[in-house]
């Protein structure tokens, strides 16, 4: 079913299932569904938040979009084409990918980390270098000072900025972000969230952003998709999320009301 992209719909999931130990179907009746019957659309230029607890299938959904995983059944369309019809390398180079700080290559300098995808794409060295400088400035890091350093010489917040710069370097139309600010201290996190919000508004990228932090979701999202146990509970515009009727939404709202102590920012998934 090769439907052309609907108006403005950059990413579409249609009845997507993903089972652990996927790949070739085996006679294993007990395989756990990490994503069950997921259908959703991501509009051009919006920031869609995938919100949910640990193990709700958020990260799995993200990996289904850049084909690090392939759906057991159903289909994921990116720019109107099934991910399984894309050349995975081409697909991934059109999609910026930001994960918690571990994603930087420890043996590369910051400049080489940021310039990685442009280099892979065969850009010439001076152009890559210029782009690296531009990207580092964009995320508020002085290129002179940071380009030659290694990731371990940077603070967590600086590393995360580099992660964003790296994802943006080849100017991909789509960004996938997997709890990018999850490992940061609350002050740095708030700072980066604000900057990210401005950056997202300015760049107009289509962004899918995974978090378990409902405050972050409310702050950054255009729409919020709530996941629980691998299923999509509901999608709401961020402004209306707090009034969502579903029981799971109310749980998140209660957690928000219970104050900061109830929202453990370190609970990763």
């Amino acid at each position, binding site marked *: 079913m090769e439907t052309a992209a609907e108006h403005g719909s950059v990413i579409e999931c249609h009845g997507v299932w993903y089972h652990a130990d996927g790949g070739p179907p085996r006679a294993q009746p007990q395989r756990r569904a990490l994503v069950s019957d997921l259908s959703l659309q991501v509009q051009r230029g919006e920031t869609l938040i995938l919100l949910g607890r640990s193990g709700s299938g958020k990260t799995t959904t993200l990996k289904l979009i850049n084909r690090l995983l392939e759906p057991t059944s159903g289909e994921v369309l990116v720019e109107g084409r099934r991910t399984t019809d894309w050349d*995975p390398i*081409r697909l991934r180079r059109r999609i910026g990918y930001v*994960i918690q700080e571990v994603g930087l*290559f420890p*043996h590369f300098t910051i400049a080489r980390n940021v310039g990685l995808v442009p280099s892979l794409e065969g850009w010439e060295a001076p152009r890559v270098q210029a782009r690296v400088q531009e990207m580092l400035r964009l995320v508020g890091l002085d290129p002179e000072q940071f380009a030659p350093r290694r990731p371990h010489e940077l603070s967590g917040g600086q590393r995360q900025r580099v992660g964003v710069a790296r994802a943006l370097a080849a100017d991909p139309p789509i960004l996938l972000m997997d709890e990018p600010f999850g490992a940061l201290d609350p002050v740095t996190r708030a700072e980066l969230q604000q900057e990210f919000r401005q950056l997202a508004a300015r760049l107009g990228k289509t962004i899918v952003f995974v978090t378990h932090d409902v405050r972050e979701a409310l702050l950054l999202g255009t729409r919020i998709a709530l996941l629980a146990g691998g299923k999509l509970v509901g999608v709401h515009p961020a402004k209306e999320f707090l009034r969502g009727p579903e029981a799971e939404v109310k749980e998140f709202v209660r957690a928000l009301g219970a104050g900061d102590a109830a929202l453990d920012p370190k609970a990763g998934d």
Partner: protein
Amino acid sequence: MNAFDFLIRNRAEVLQLTLEHLLLVARAMVLAIPLGVLLGIALTRHKAMRQWILGAANVIQTVPSLALFGFLIPVPLIGGIGDRTAIVALTLYALLPIIRNTFAGIAGVDRAVAEAARGMGMTEGQVLRQVEIPLALGVILAGIRVATVISVGVATIAAAIGAGGLGMYIFRGVAMVNNQVILAGAIPAAILAVLADVSLGWAERRLTAR
């Protein structure tokens, strides 16, 4: 006459045997390093091969070295009396530490880093060459170093099948019940082993300097 007098009086022969010894080890390592590293990489990609290859390398390692040399003599093409058999035996012996360390080194690379690399659109070859091997290099080199040092010791047995090397003195000394002659083989062999260890350790630090 002590061992040192013996070494000095026979320095030409000692030097020649030391060179033979070095050449045996060097030729074996030239075979074992690429083979071991390739097999180690293959193991990270093909789960099914793992137990077979690691099992085979383990079994080879458990065969007493003298017996391994003996077993190889009647094997066609690679067997016979002489250094070819010795090189094959040394290579087989050196494989296990290299395979195991290559596999462990790459398997030990942070999975999130490898996944980020794939997620950014690196091909499998690029992930391997630009990310996994550089990050595993220290462990791989440590395996090569262990294999080389072991080979320097095992190569003394090559003399038993006519491949020469410092083992000549050791076997001759045992036959003559003469400790000086045994030491004339053992001391240079020990020095070679220490030198190999130190120089490869240095190379390891240079190559993995961050």
